């Protein structure tokens, strides 16, 4: 069967049969899908179906095969075995164009926008651009782009370059593109990782509107609260095999988590922490930068301080200032009572600070390199044979890499595997783990659990806890507000470049954070 045999593109609502009582009709059926990578069986005989007008969650641990499954559906990978059926008819999809023609739109886990092009151009990628008198009609290009963005309520100028935008804006643009294609099957691979709560809400609203029109969603996420909020059904993969498909009626937290981790999994819960917080590790005084003003706080040994706020609120900027990614304009930092100057990240590392950036692929992963090299890079100086030629002692380096990957429970074929072949969550563990052996005392963690599965999330929380108990100081930020309550002793909420309020203990709740972040005041 060739691309021509695929049912015609569904550019308009007319092509989609109206949702009827017959909503058990499957638009997308996966039959016995198998994908073998060298050394890894990523998918093993997986079968399930996505019904018309439903939001179908696809769940599973890091490396369970979710992204691989999606890539097999949209033709980015060719499956080793099995079939993909659309409306009950087998289709052969070997390229994104085929997928588009079959009515499938995909937002991949890893951004697929062209950084050097404008928002409008990106929204038209792969499409015929409107013309006038044989030349490109730019005003029409921008007008259409505007329409697409307005649908999902994104107010980004269509002339902006992708490279100038923030990650959450990238995500919204990718989503807008998929949604605007009016594909009848829209696949979203962890679309909410970089989104803030109100953006997630807007996305969900849009998804619900589309399901009422008969579109279907296959939706990957590690955020179970979102899944319960929006999904009609859920399919769970485990080690590349189908672990179960759940209907709304039998979707329980325990059931789903059990299916994901393979036994009754304990969910992360709020901890009562009782560590000593004496001895100031770091004192921040009147620290100011371009987007943050007059930040002052003390970080005690064993303390976990949260930094929360909307983009541009100064929360991110504070993280950057603390690591020397940006130079401060005023104020300073003392570590162990000694003032330190942070001109660049090198200074911060020398002062014993570790940093996990939010954007793993762009800021943390050394592509095309081995897991080993990715783990040991910032601590290589510890494994040198001698200080002059700086020859690296491979035996000791390997040992360190093995130790860290074991402690972090990284799933991989071995420490020499390419980092790019690891699933997103396992890459994140590597990125976090690399700082364990640097001897850092202060950990700046910006969304350390982004794209990490439930089980691993808990492991990372435990790890943070363990670090705190060892007497390290931790500054934590996340796009998932619920995490602050799980992780932090106290939280500074930022608004308009300043600390709008400090929350402690029981007061660290999502609503409180949201209120302060939005510039409101808390009821006494």
């Amino acid at each position: 069967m060739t691309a021509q045999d695929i049912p015609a593109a569904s550019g308009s609502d007319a092509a989609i049969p109206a949702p009827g009582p017959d909503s058990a009709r499957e638009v997308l059926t996966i039959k016995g899908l198998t994908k073998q990578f060298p050394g890894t069986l990523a998918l093993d005989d997986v079968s399930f179906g996505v019904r018309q007008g439903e939001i179908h969650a696809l769940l599973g641990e890091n490396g369970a095969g979710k992204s691989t499954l999606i890539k097999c559906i949209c033709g980015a990978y060719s499956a080793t075995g099995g079939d993909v059926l659309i409306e009950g008819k087998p289709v052969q999809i070997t390229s994104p164009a085929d997928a588009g023609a079959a009515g499938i739109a995909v937002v991949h886990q890893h951004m697929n926008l062209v950084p050097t092009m404008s928002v409008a151009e990106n929204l038209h990628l792969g499409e015929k651009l409107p013309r006038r008198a044989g030349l490109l009609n730019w005003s029409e290009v921008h007008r259409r782009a505007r329409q697409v963005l307005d649908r999902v309520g994104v107010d980004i100028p269509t002339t902006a370059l992708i490279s100038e935008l923030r990650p959450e804006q990238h995500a919204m643009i990718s989503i807008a593109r998929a949604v605007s294609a009016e594909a009848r099957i829209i696949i979203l691979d962890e679309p909410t990782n970089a989104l803030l709560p109100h953006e997630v809400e807007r996305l969900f609203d849009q998804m619900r509107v589309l399901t009422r029109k008969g579109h279907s969603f296959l939706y990957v996420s590690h955020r179970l609260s979102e899944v319960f909020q929006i999904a009609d059904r859920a399919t769970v993969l485990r080690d590349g095999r189908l672990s179960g498909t759940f209907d709304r009626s039998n979707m329980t937290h325990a059931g789903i988590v059990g299916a994901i981790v393979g036994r009754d999994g304990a969910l992360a819960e709020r901890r009562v922490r009782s560590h000593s917080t004496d001895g100031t590790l770091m004192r921040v005084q009147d620290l100011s930068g371009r987007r943050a003003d007059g930040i002052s706080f003390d970080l005690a040994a064993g303390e976990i301080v949260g930094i929360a706020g909307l983009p541009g609120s100064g929360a991110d900027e504070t993280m950057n200032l603390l690591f020397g990614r940006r130079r401060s304009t005023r104020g300073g930092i003392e570590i162990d009572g000694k003032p330190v100057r942070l001109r660049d990240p090198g200074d911060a590392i020398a002062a014993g600070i570790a940093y996990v950036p939010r954007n793993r692929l762009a800021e943390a992963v050394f592509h095309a390199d081995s897991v080993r090299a990715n783990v040991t890079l910032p601590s290589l100086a510890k494994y040198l044979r001698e200080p002059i030629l700086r020859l690296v002692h491979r035996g000791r380096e390997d040992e360190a890499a093995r130790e860290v990957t074991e402690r972090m429970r990284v799933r991989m074929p071995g420490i020499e595997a390419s980092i790019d072949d690891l699933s997103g969550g396992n890459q994140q563990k590597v990125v976090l783990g690399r700082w364990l052996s640097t001897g850092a005392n202060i950990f700046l963690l910006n969304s350390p659990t982004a794209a990490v599965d439930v089980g691993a999330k808990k492991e990372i929380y435990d790890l943070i806890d363990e670090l705190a108990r060892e007497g390290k100081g931790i500054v934590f930020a996340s796009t998932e507000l619920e995490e602050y309550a799980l992780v932090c002793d106290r939280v500074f909420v930022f608004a308009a470049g300043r600390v709008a309020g400090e929350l402690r203990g029981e007061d660290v709740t999502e609503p409180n954070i949201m209120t302060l972040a939005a510039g409101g005041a808390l009821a006494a």
Partner: protein
Amino acid sequence: MTATTSDNSADPQPRPSFDWITFLSRWGTLISLGLLIILFSIGRPEVFMTLRNMLNILNQVSILGMIAFGLTICLVVGLFDLSIGAMATFGGYFAARFLMELNVENGFAVVIVILVVLALAALIGMINGALIAYLGISAIVETLAMSFVATGIILGISGGRTVYATEIPEAFTIIGQGKIAGIPNPVLILLLLGFVLWVFLEHTQTGRNMYALGGNREASRLSGISFSRYALIAMAISGACAALGGLVAGANLGAGRPQGVGDVYLLNAFVAVFIGASTMKPGKFHILGTAVGVLLIGVINNGLSVMGVQTFWQYIVQGGILILALISASLNSVRRS
């Protein structure tokens, strides 16, 4: 830490299956090198597959090899160096010119002069690196500009006049023409340089940091690796290696030519390094790969001329092999994307 996910040991055992694409993308270039050698050996067994001819091939590619090794270093960091052609000419000409002007005779003084020339080339490389790193200029444009400047300076100082063999001490020409234990000196220099740079890239922290920078510059910065420092080092090495190549070429030729020495090597060096990046470790620039690339070029040129094939074929075959190498390297990434 309590475990909630399964242990690594619980993972399904990898089921090995032979993967042609990975195999070809790794070993394709080496296989074609082997096939070519077999082909030429069958074609002209009495000429091609002799020790003499093998050493001859190595000797023919030694200068290209030195330049390509240096280029590998700056490509590892992610920088193109288009000034290597001019720097080779620079090395060859100024070594000869200084030796002539200073009227140096003894071997020790020759070594000093050579070191000074190499240091000058490294300095120019560092200027390249500084302009690229601190001003944020694109390496391609900057090094192209620098190669014009260097060419201009050489032409200006030389007045277009070649320094001839009679004006150069024998202690210098022996570098390019002599042998030790039957092995031509340029080959020995090449092997030594290759070994040193291999150790440097693969086994020192500096080299590893360079790979990190090439892999992800922002992530490197966040790991405390300063791009500017390594850009300077990489460009200095590249400049010095190119000058060394030119210098050995000059010694071999017994003349210091002010133009046209390095240009021949510029494109071939890039070809060799890119063939190398599709060998054994696809997508990664490395010294062993570059060595294979250099050998491939040497074997094609030598083999075809031994077989009496016309020169234009050498270009066609070389271009074809490069395309094949790039295809085999990209097979992997095509599948991955």
